[in-house]
């Protein structure tokens, strides 16, 4: 076999392997997938906020945008990074949370919950 040009079956095997590695080798229906996606999203969020103290204003501000990007990217499509509307939506939601205390409170409670669960995990 030409080492530079792998045959079609080799390409297929590699594609399936990479999909499985990314956790996207779908085998179930939308509900099971939704639960799995939700667990994956939670793990990603925990990784972003790892080591952040909810009392540390600067650290909280620095994770806000990555947390929002992670939530929206996961829900509406990771391929939206270059979409002109997506960038504006992200900035608008960030501004809402920054400027409205009631929204900021929801953000803080969620981050505190993520940090606590991570630190109490075995």
């Amino acid at each position: 076999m030409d080492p530079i040009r792998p045959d079609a079956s080799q390409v297929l095997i590699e594609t399936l392997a990479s999909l499985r590695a990314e956790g996207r080798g779908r085998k179930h229906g939308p509900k099971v997938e939704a639960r799995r996606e939700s667990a994956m999203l939670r793990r990603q969020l925990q990784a972003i906020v790892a080591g952040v103290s909810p009392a540390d204003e600067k650290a909280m501000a620095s994770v806000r945008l990555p947390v929002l990007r992670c939530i929206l990217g996961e829900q509406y499509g990771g391929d939206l990074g270059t979409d002109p509307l997506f960038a504006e939506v992200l900035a608008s939601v960030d501004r809402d949370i920054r400027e409205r205390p009631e929204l900021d409170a929801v953000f803080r409670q969620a981050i505190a919950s993520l940090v606590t669960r991570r630190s109490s995990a075995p």
Partner: protein
Amino acid sequence: MATAAPSISEVDLPETAAAVWRRCREGWEQGRAELARRYAPWVRSVARSVFLRVRGRSDDWPDYVQNAMLGMLEAMNSFDVERGVPFEAYARPRVRGAVFNGLRALRTLPPELSGARLSEESVASLLDDEHDDPVERLIAMVSGLALGHGLSLHGDMAAMVEPTGPYDAAVRSQLGERLSKHLKRLGERERLVLEWHYLQHLSFTHVADTLGISRGRVSQLHRQALLRLRERMIHDQWQQSL
């Protein structure tokens, strides 16, 4: 005996505006909502003509549309279809006047109070959910806020920018197109609440008056509609990644 096939004029033709006005006068409850839905694109075009004429700031565009819609709702109250004048001809000076009046008020506002912000009522409606888990609550809140901004920004962009060449087509938003597609597939009332609130920038109170329902019911429909839109967007994304 074979029945005669209906003529073209009897098949799938929408009721004329005059007929809707008459049924409305005879007490058809949803007539006002139907008329507002029909005239909404025209109202936006009137707002747009003023906006372009005065070279408005894009941040202020929602106020132009909102004032134009309010002008139209007022004109609807005093319009008499039996006088034989088309509603657009009767309402145009009133709608334009409402936009210009709003413009004067807009110029006296401090800059931090103008611009595209989600309304207090839509934010309150979003926060009124049932999640006990703070992380799920954050995810629902962020998704709802994003959908609201997405609808509003996409609607405003589409109204203000006319595609002129291949470059414009290339920068068209994929997210905006998906939102529009799923918005059109919502149930009538849910769709109207989102369209009037985010695209025409009407308050929940005005939406409630037009639909003939309570403000609380509008808030409920708003939350329900965003939730449904979110589910469909996620499902869409799930299918695309297969």
